[in-house]
């Protein structure tokens, strides 16, 4: 890593580390407040039903029960993150007339302890009239299918078209055209800390909520809307969070019910979802039926791509609308398609709502897309890596009307992966290496949440002892944004990492930030922090100027606690002295720097793009169809690496989650009931299942990012599905188009292939 930086580019122990390895980190799960009550939520056992009658009296009479609330006790407002489109705010959270999935909340209880609350659930009598339900989006789209929401005919929730060029005309010119149908499965986020909140509504009319969230600003806004409060009367604090992965930036039932109960009772209320609720009644990955058609020239030049996607929406919009949009965009990446058309439909079904899961629509798109490219390569007898390289996006390319690509390290990624594959040489039988590519956004430009605030903002406060307080709204859920931002701040200010104290957990302290999702924090919040630090630094340098008298103040900079002449580094004075002087001269005011970032180019998807190429090696047992993951090598371009140890963590963590989704994770259902709602039955990769992983960072500089940095979080979940499918094909010659790639599917495919061979 380059030495032009003092702090960034060198592995740093994460600022939250010591608390986490000693057990002293206090999660929402661990919180206890004086006079606190415990809440539980009653949920629908029916996939679709009218609520005819609700009688809470028996539960209310139970000793220890303090309140039992139902939809009648709410303002009847509907929650949603797409606030610019009222009809997409469609989730009551506490249902009043109708339940739409098994797990839909109908009542909330607060009691003196968890046990009493749980026991009281059985004393709430709800009379339902079961309604015909629909679970398959393709069924749901048909005329006469059971309708979930009045406003959505044929259950169509959101549609999205993305198009450029002339696809139909272009297909005429293609030497080879291939089309196929893929399916991707549901996946659980499986945060080790389940969703939970502690809400304390005081007699001063102010609500404080401690909660495990990816966006305390979103929760503040959504809660205040749902409860009829002003944003300023709601304070959301994020203690250390036990994982999010896309499941924790929407208002959830624990947060809403705890707040509602506390509002009525004026006592702190804690609700922690059980693991079963976590599986069945929080959001999940969006399953997709994915049709794709690609056309190319004999020489491998891509000409046209057409994609039609129907997603299983579940009962409500959630972030699923974004997933639908992003899938449509990712389906063209990371290649130069002169002609492209995407039609996406999100369909309501009587299942748990589907939404964002680390990758946000990308893993689905790349599973189908990267599989098809291998088929295409085989069809025209071209090396899979070559055909990708030939069509890959290059720096300073515009995806028509969608994205300006500035930095792009794909070329270097191909070289790295090519070396790796050559090094592996000829593989033993039933082994195969498959590759997958991706591009991923560094946060979105879209603002359907409709915030007037900057997307990210930061304040830097320099105190008399030279210590720096960094205030930001970024939400570190373990990925390390607190550390990354502290490093950016320290680098810009020329101080040490331990001079920085990050205040990122509290809407009362930090400026608004959209939160950590869409791989946005490093670039967007990083820019805001860098700007704030620069602003504060500038104030110091102005006073330093008076002492050092360069021609212009730009001749000064700070590094390692020294303010120095840029071209005469030996001439320097102490940072600490200048801090003292500056504060005295400002009549004792601390030095405050302010920064913000909102991406420009509205209408585009993202200000900057991370890229990568991944090689997955598998071994398949032809007798059982079992796939063994051998090694996963990822070459990726995240711009300037800020914290190397953090980036490795992102590579390996994303790989584990993506490989799980490709390999074994799914949520089979029977009449809308998720059949494996426990970690015992839900298959998640463990240490013995985890393959060897190698991460290779290629060096690029992103002009739009802080110190040239861009995303390194979600994008890394993108290539694994397709790469694994390609690896299985290269190992035993069968192509699985339906995730996850279970032994049973592989074995059945092998048998089919055998039959086919015999016929010939």
């Amino acid at each position: 890593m380059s030495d032009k930086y003092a702090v960034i580019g060198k592995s740093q122990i994460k600022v939250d580390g010591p608390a986490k390895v000693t057990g002293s980190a206090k999660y929402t799960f661990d919180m206890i407040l004086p006079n606190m009550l415990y809440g539980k939520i009653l949920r629908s056992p029916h996939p679709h039903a009218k609520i005819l009658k609700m009688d809470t009296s028996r539960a209310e009479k139970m000793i220890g029960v303090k309140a039992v609330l139902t939809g009648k006790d709410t303002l009847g407002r509907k929650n949603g993150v797409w606030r610019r489109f009222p009809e997409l705010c469609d989730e009551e959270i506490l249902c009043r007339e109708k339940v739409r999935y098994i797990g839909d909340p109908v009542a909330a209880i607060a009691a003196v302890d968890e046990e009493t609350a749980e026991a009281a659930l059985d004393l709430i009598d709800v009379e339902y009239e079961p309604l015909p339900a629909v679970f398959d989006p393709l069924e749901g789209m048909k005329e006469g299918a059971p309708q979930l929401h009045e406003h959505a005919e044929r259950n169509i929730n959101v549609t999205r078209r993305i198009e450029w060029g002339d696809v139909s005309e272009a297909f005429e010119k293609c030497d080879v055209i291939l089309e196929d149908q893929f399916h991707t499965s549901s996946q659980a986020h499986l945060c080790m800390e389940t969703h939970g909140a502690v809400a304390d509504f005081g007699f001063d009319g102010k609500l404080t909520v401690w909660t495990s969230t990816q966006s305390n600003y979103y929760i503040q806004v959504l809660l205040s809307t749902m409860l009829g409060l002003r944003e300023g009367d709601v304070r959301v604090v994020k203690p250390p969070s036990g994982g999010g992965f896309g499941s924790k930036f929407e208002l959830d039932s624990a947060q809403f019910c705890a707040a509602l109960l506390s509002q009525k009772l004026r006592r702190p209320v804690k609700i922690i979802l059980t693991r079963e609720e976590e599986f069945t009644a929080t959001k999940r990955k969006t399953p997709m039926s994915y049709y794709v058609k690609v056309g190319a020239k004999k020489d491998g030049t891509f000409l046209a791509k057409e994609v039609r996607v129907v997603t299983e929406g579940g009962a409500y919009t959630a972030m699923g609308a974004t997933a639908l949009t992003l899938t449509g965009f990712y389906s063209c990446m990371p290649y130069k398609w002169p002609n492209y058309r995407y039609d996406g439909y999100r369909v309501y079904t009587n299942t748990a709502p589907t939404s964002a899961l680390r990758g946000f629509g990308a893993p689905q798109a790349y599973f189908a897309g990267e599989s098809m490219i291998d088929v295409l390569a085989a069809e025209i007898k071209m090396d899979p890596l070559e055909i990708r390289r030939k069509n890959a996006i290059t720096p300073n390319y515009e995806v028509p009307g969608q994205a300006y690509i500035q930095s792009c390290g794909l070329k270097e990624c191909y070289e790295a992966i090519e070396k790796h594959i050559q090094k592996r040489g000829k593989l033993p039988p039933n082994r195969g290496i498959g590759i997958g590519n991706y591009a991923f956004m560094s946060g979105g430009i879209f603002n359907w949440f409709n915030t007037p605030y900057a997307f990210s903002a930061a304040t830097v406060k320099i105190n008399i002892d030279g210590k720096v307080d960094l205030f930001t709204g970024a939400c570190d859920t373990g990925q390390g944004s607190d550390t990354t931002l502290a490093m950016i701040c320290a680098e810009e200010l020329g101080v040490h990492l331990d001079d920085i104290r990050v205040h990122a957990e509290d809407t009362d302290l930090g400026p608004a930030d959209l939160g950590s999702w869409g791989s946005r924090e490093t670039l967007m919040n990083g820019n805001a922090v860098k700007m704030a630090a620069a602003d504060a630094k500038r104030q110091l340098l102005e006073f330093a100027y008076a002492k050092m008298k360069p021609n212009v103040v730009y001749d000064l900079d700070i590094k390692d606690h020294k303010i120095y002449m840029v071209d005469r580094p030996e001439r320097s004075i102490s940072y600490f002295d200048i801090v003292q002087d500056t504060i005295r001269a400002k009549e004792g005011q601390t030095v405050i720097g302010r920064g913000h970032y909102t991406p420009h180019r509205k209408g585009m998807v993202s200000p900057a793009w991370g890229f990568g190429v991944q090689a997955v090696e598998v071994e398949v047992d032809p007798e059982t169809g079992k796939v063994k993951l051998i090694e996963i090598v990822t070459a990726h371009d995240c711009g300037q690496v800020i914290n190397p140890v953090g980036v490795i963590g992102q590579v390996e963590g994303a790989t584990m989650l993506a490989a799980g989704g490709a390999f074994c994770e799914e949520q089979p259902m029977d009449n809308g009931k998720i059949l494996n709602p426990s970690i015992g039955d839900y298959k998640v990769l463990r240490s013995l299942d985890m393959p060897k992983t190698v991460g290779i960072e290629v060096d690029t500089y992103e002009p739009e990012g802080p110190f040239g940095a861009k995303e390194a979080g979600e994008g890394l979940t993108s290539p694994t599905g397709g790469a694994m499918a390609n690896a299985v094909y290269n190992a035993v010659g069968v192509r699985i188009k339906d995730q996850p790639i279970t032994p049973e599917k592989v074995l059945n495919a092998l048998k089919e292939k055998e039959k086919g061979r015999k016929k010939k």
Partner: protein
Amino acid sequence: MRKELKFTVNGQPYELYVKPKTLLVDVLRNELGLTGTKKGCESSSCGVCTIILNGMAVKSCSILALQAEGAEITTVEGLAKGDQLHPLQKAFLDYGAYQCGFCTPGMLASAKAFLDENPKPTEEEIKEAIDGNVCRCTGYNSIIRAMTAVVNGDYKEAK
């Protein structure tokens, strides 16, 4: 009817009265305030509640508190000596062997119990040792590197 429970946790002897149905993890968290040890599932499968009982890694969510009568227990809070971190804790920091940190206390318990019994393991044995602990963030390999570093003696126990 509450029953007497005598055991030692992190070197401190305790004498408590607990309901027979109380799980060990709940006594540690609620009675002793040792909230480092977590709960993550209701099916004894995630491992975040792992503690060291008489030298063995066990799941404190699947043991009745009364079954720990007379036991010597170590939780994550008992790993550091004063202000000196345990070698595993130092290694976890350096290798970024945690992210959200929710599985970390149980992971450390599994790792310590294992290395105390088998100080020179193979990589496969290290993987087996933590296979009962789910981590959704790291992909495990950084944890394996951290444990390997301790095995290689890169970190010294505080005296």
